[in-house]
């Protein structure tokens, strides 16, 4: 992709960030090793990775878009479809399952009015199941964004959702 097109992608990744990644890629022998890094950077900024994000990653690293999407579609935590402002990953692996994931999911469904895989009407939360989060001692657990919560009770969830909602709004205010 020509550099001019890449420059119009500020909403995916700010220009200084693009330049920083581009410079780092130029330094290393195997730019492919940065594909996941760039995808994560785009996702941090844009929330998810649209097709243009795949193209941008390829352009920054000088690899083909196919090579980028081959990874983007492999990894669970790279979102190739729009998600809400925050993604709730509810662990459904064995420790959490044994200690009550089902109840947690059921409560989240009711509170958010969505099924797993969907985004709440206000665009705030996307509910996704996830495999083990590595907090098995604190089961049942979930992860919102990159923050893990557990052990969860139904009561905790309402409080956490409210807190995350406020956090998102606060962050929004700082942004603007």
């Amino acid at each position, binding site marked *: 992709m020509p550099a001019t097109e890449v420059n119009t992608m500020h909403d995916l990744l700010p220009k200084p960030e693009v330049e920083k990644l581009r410079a780092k890629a130029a330094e290393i022998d195997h730019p492919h090793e940065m594909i996941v890094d760039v995808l994560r950077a785009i996702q941090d900024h844009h929330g998810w990775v649209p*097709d243009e994000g*795949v193209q941008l990653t390829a352009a920054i690293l000088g690899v*083909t*878009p*196919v*090579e980028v*999407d*081959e990874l983007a*579609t*492999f990894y669970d935590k790279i979102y190739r479809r729009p998600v809400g402002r925050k993604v709730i990953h509810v662990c459904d692996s064995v420790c959490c399952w044994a200690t009550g994931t089902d109840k947690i999911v059921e409560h989240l469904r009711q509170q958010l009015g969505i099924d797993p895989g969907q985004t709440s009407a206000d665009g705030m939360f996307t509910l996704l199941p996830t495999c083990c989060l590595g907090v098995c001692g604190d089961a049942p657990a979930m992860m919102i964004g990159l923050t893990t919560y557990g052990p969860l009770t139904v009561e905790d969830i309402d409080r956490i959702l409210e807190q995350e909602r406020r956090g998102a709004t606060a962050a929004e205010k700082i942004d603007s």
Partner: protein
Amino acid sequence: MPKLTIDNREVTVPEETNVLEAARDLGIVIPHFCYHEALGAVGACRLCAMTFLEGPVEGVQMACMVKAEDGMVVSTLDEKAAELRRHVIEWSMMHHPHDCPVCDEGGECQLQDMTVAGGHGMRRYRGRKRTFRNQDLGPFVFQEMNRCITCYRCVRTYREYCGGTDFGVFGSRGRVFFGRLADGRLESPFSGNIIDVCPTGVFTDKVFRYTSRYWDLQEAPSICPHCSLGCATIPSARYRELQRVRSGINRETNGFFICDRGRFGFDYTNHAERPRQPRVDGQGTSMTQAVTAAERRIRETAERHGADSIIFLGSARASLEANALLARWAERFGCRQLSFEAHAERDRTARLVAARLGDRACSLADVRRSDLLVVIGADLLAEGPMAAVAVRQAARSGARVVVIDPRPIDLPCRFEHLAAEPARLAAILRGLASGQTKNLLERERPLVQPLLAAIRVAEAPVLLGGGDLLGHEGMGLLLDAAQALSPAERPVKLMAMLGGPNSYGGALLATAARDFDALLDQVREGSVKALVCLETDPFRDVCDPPRTQTALGHLDLLVVLDSVPGLAVQRADILLPTRAIAETDGCFVNNEGRLQAFRQVFDPGLPIRETGGGDHPPREFRTDTPGAAPEAAWRILARILGRKDHLPTIRQQLAAEDPRFRDLVFAEPGSKGSRLTAEASLPAKARVSLAEPAPGADTLPVLPVRTFAGADRLSHLSAPLQALASGPAVFLKPDLAERLGLTEGDGARLTTAEGHCRVVVHLDARMADNLILVPHLWDSALEGMVPGGRRIDGRLEKEEGS
């Protein structure tokens, strides 16, 4: 060489052979999906299970992942291995749709065969099946992802082997998708190979789709006629129609794959305007009468005006047998006016190669094994596409690839490119041949100087040259360079991209000093009265079509034998329609001197689709086959010569008459062929020189070049390949464009001595400076600018109002 025992039978195999291959050598075929000889073993499908009873590994193993070793005792029949194979088949079939009745792969589906072989007859899984949304992959390949068994063969072929970049593996776990980022034509010129390698009906031939069942097809081993490499193919026909071509297997040449031109270029055979009716003086007649008329009128011309009043013109797309018989016809009168290539420069180049190649001859297998490849004046993707894939295989094993060419060359691998102007090629070649770089430019020397040393120390260096750009003179210099750089113990090999599938064969037959351009002078002078054309169109297939066309107007008699429509066919006084390649037997000699036979696939006739007007069965009932008049050129010529029209006999006669062709007797379709080590006579001195004079102040050199889709007339006449066609265009370097006030996409006027035409401007920074590149385009105002032909200068101006 390890010796092992498989099913109680001993076999000795070369080192590095895997046990699946060792079993195959014994004729034991164990089901497998992901293993493929060209792609190697990856152990993904887990189908080729065998039980290892004794030796370094034990138990059930994937045979493809185990290298054969001394003392191994292996059983393919052991129940544990058989049970696993049954399970792998069952797992593969879990999500596979039961759409075999409407699946194009039906009957030639490896999955179907393996399912039966694996003993899986009952579906036990009743869970949900995965489904995918298919992509539109363009005109050649149809995708039906629901059938996929995830063997990864397609991506390994498309990307790893052929170097395509727009196809990949997406998703994961039980949902793996093989395709593109989005809908769109597969960009690789080798895309069709995924049709061949897919073990089931995920990727099928879109052109062939819903046309025939495999078991209804007539098939035979053949040779691709669309360039000089001679790739093995298997054309398939039904209802008097050539319906598809797939890759044959020849480990010395193409290996297992072919290019899309070879796969989808076949349709000239079915061309609606194809000559099918013999004709004498504008009147349709029988073949017998036309043959009689041709023989009589040529004889009369010879009697009246002398033997040299006739020109016999063979071609690079006519078989060796037909060309040889044409020569016999000329000899009958003592006529010396004989050429096997209308394009005089290609003729000279091919003859030079045939005369001097010797033990430098290089197969595609040699290219694949090379560690240093220098490509000079050759756009492999256009002139010999599978050579580009062969170069890629060498590069994958670590070979260095250097390209010296004025064009913005693409290759499916990493390479270094020196965009030397055409006029500089001779100097560079002289530098390589002499080892002296003092005459090179500042920007040439840093590449060429170390290259000299690199070629000397490389283990298996190969020089590849393009006949069109290098011409006779440049090819001579390339041969000189190969010779100069060869130490005694190993020759530097050389592969030349020649004009057509039998250029080399024609070059071996050629003896006359004069080329077709020289012969045309005699037509103009009036001493030549008649021209016999064998499967060539001298109105187009020449260096200088406008000049040739004027000259040909002076002829009294034009006899044309051909299988495709053209100007010569239109203007022939006597037309003898011939069979297309798939309709007859014959031999070609490829660009390395390899004699290869092709076998008749079907008999000619108007395709039933045409006679029935879409209706079936045809409503017109008759006892003969409509459109069946075309005869094999060799047969027509044999009759004219009064020889027995029996090909084996003719081959025996030709072999006896000229010992250089003794291998004709053993020519076997589907084999690897045999390299002729024959001597050829040198051509006449070239009239054009590589070191072109600088063009006038307001003109620039114009370089017509071949393109992938229309490199040869035959593929141009193939409807499926029209999908790749583009309009008249020129390419130039951005700074030149800037000087001319042109930008990308501009409409421009290209003016040459013959007139002018409208072209679209494309910029490419990778090409040489001061050069206008014109992709050759048949049936357009650019048609007269023939690659490898005469020197052209031109002017390029922005078109007003664009």
